[in-house]
């Protein structure tokens, strides 16, 4: 059993790293990407339906909203992963 558990934990950790990597890619894209590196080209259009230049919107509003969503997506993914691998804290102490 211990061998088996170790292998399961390794797989759990690998999946966790993959989730974190994906989410951090989005984190980087909306802040450093859209809000800083690409801010000028994006500013030539407005956020649809508003008078916000798009790059400026990402830098001062949009990135923050995306950050919030990212954390809740992570929570959902990880709770699912905990269940799948039988390491959820809901099943007992």
């Amino acid at each position, binding site marked *: 059993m211990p061998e088996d*558990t170790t292998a*399961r*934990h390794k797989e*759990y*950790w690998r999946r*966790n790293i993959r989730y*974190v990597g994906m*989410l*951090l890619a989005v*984190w980087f894209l909306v*802040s*450093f990407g859209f*809000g*800083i*590196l690409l*801010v*000028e080209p994006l*500013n030539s259009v407005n*956020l649809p339906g*508003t*008078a*916000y*230049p798009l790059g*400026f*919107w990402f*830098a*001062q*509003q949009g*990135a*923050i*909203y995306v*950050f*919030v969503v*990212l*954390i*809740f997506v*992570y*929570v959902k993914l*990880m*709770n699912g992963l*905990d269940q799948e691998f*039988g*390491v*959820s*804290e*809901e*099943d*007992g*102490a």
Partner: protein
Amino acid sequence: MTAQQWTLALVVASFALYIGIAIRSRASTTKEFYVAGTGVSPLANGMATAADWMSAASFLGMAGLISFMGYDGSVYLMGWTGGYVLLALLLAPYLRKFGAFTVPDFVGDRYYSQTARIVAVVCAIFISFTYVAGQMRGVGIVFGRFLEVDIDVGVYIGMAVVFFYAVLGGMKGITYTQVAQYCVLIFAYLVPAIFLSIMVTGNPIPQLGLGGVDLASGMPLLERLNGLNTELGFTEYTSGTKSMLDVFFITTALMVGTAGLPHVIIRFYTVPRVRDARVSVGWALVFIALLYTTAPAIAVFARTNLINSISETPYSEVPEWFTTWEDTGLLRFEDLNGDGRIQFVGPNSPMENELTVDNDIIVLANPEIAELPNWVIGLVAAGGLAAALSTAAGLLLVVSSAVSHDLLKRSLMPEISERGELLAARFAAAAAVLFAGYLGTHPPGYVAQVVAFAFGLAASSFFPIIILGIFSKRTTREGAIVGMISGIALTGAYIVWFTLMHPELSNADNWWFGISPQGIGTVGMLLNFAVTMTVSRFTPEPPEHVQRMVDSIRVPRSVA
């Protein structure tokens, strides 16, 4: 009721609330004192974290700063929120599983070294004290402006209140007062913002109003402000003046610094389970985002209002608030060309600027500029105090637990009893409050630079070694110690050189690659990562029990 009576009433009422909560939540064990008995619900912890995090600078200073910096102000907005993503994904759940009381606790155990623990204690205390000085000062200033008491007296009153709930209740008392303080501060921030948004754009939601239409001119608001800025010789509001590289580095330093601040990290020790720690960071960011997405809207409303109401206005016809704030020294007018009118112009204008506006005034004077009722003015004062006191208390707890837990219990006097440690914690908290009060009444002349220092230090010391401690089992104590010291040394030397020793040289021509002292923490962090990983490769791998510990913190619950 006058504004001053309202202020007094609201401040006294809010203080009574905080003290009442403190009496109800006294700590009777060290676990309660350090981590509130790990019984805080994720939602309550999210609110407490938000209050812990948002300081006098966020509440009073940030909107003003953005108002004058325009797009460049984005570094604070993204930097001070993006760090929470790092905290949620890379730190909080694992540190909660580790289940320690302090940050040096983790560093000392993971790196099986008393030296590492002591280096961490010194960093934690230094970061917290540099930060707390500004908070106490903020308390004094709010008292001074709104209640016309001496700034020092204001600091003493603030100290007395913090003393009461930090010494008595420890983390438990602090947590529940912070929940109340969050409610006070967010209400106080949003009410004037909503009034202003309706006034300027007709939309009651400031976040939408910012992207809306300026009622006075019928033009899109941001376009209107860009026009006004250009006309007056400032840079367009939605473009910046900082180099892209510097914006990139400052944003990174603030994000990483946020995730490495000990008073923020320890908040996630207080929830019952790993899954609670994850979602709690999410709640914290929701509560923080409420203020942080409102601030840029206030910045634009206030700037448009300011320009519209005073630019080229004859000095003899200025509104009443102008004179009131002139008396405080936050607003200064000097009629350089003697035409009797106020020229508020930027560096690209052929005329000379005659008006100096302090950043803090944007939030403080908003209710008066917008002619809001007197109770709103009192509310803003109570909100500013809540923001400053909640942050101060969180920082002081870090100092007290670093002394009583890490220094006494874990290093010098391992035999100390539970009661003895609790007593030591209370004494340390009391001493920290007194020292913070001293800093508040005798502020170093460079508070703002010193706060940048706290972020740079947190970014270049704690963040890399905590991350590596979790994500790389091969990281050794030698690597961590050398890495922390080289990160801090580089960051510290750069900041001290440019802000304390040679402020006259501090400009883009002399900075390395144009990276300002605010952004140097990013370089320190990268250096720390590189040094720690390299040294770890050439030193003996960590002992078996440490590797097992790393395995166990990676999984919420081990299967039997």
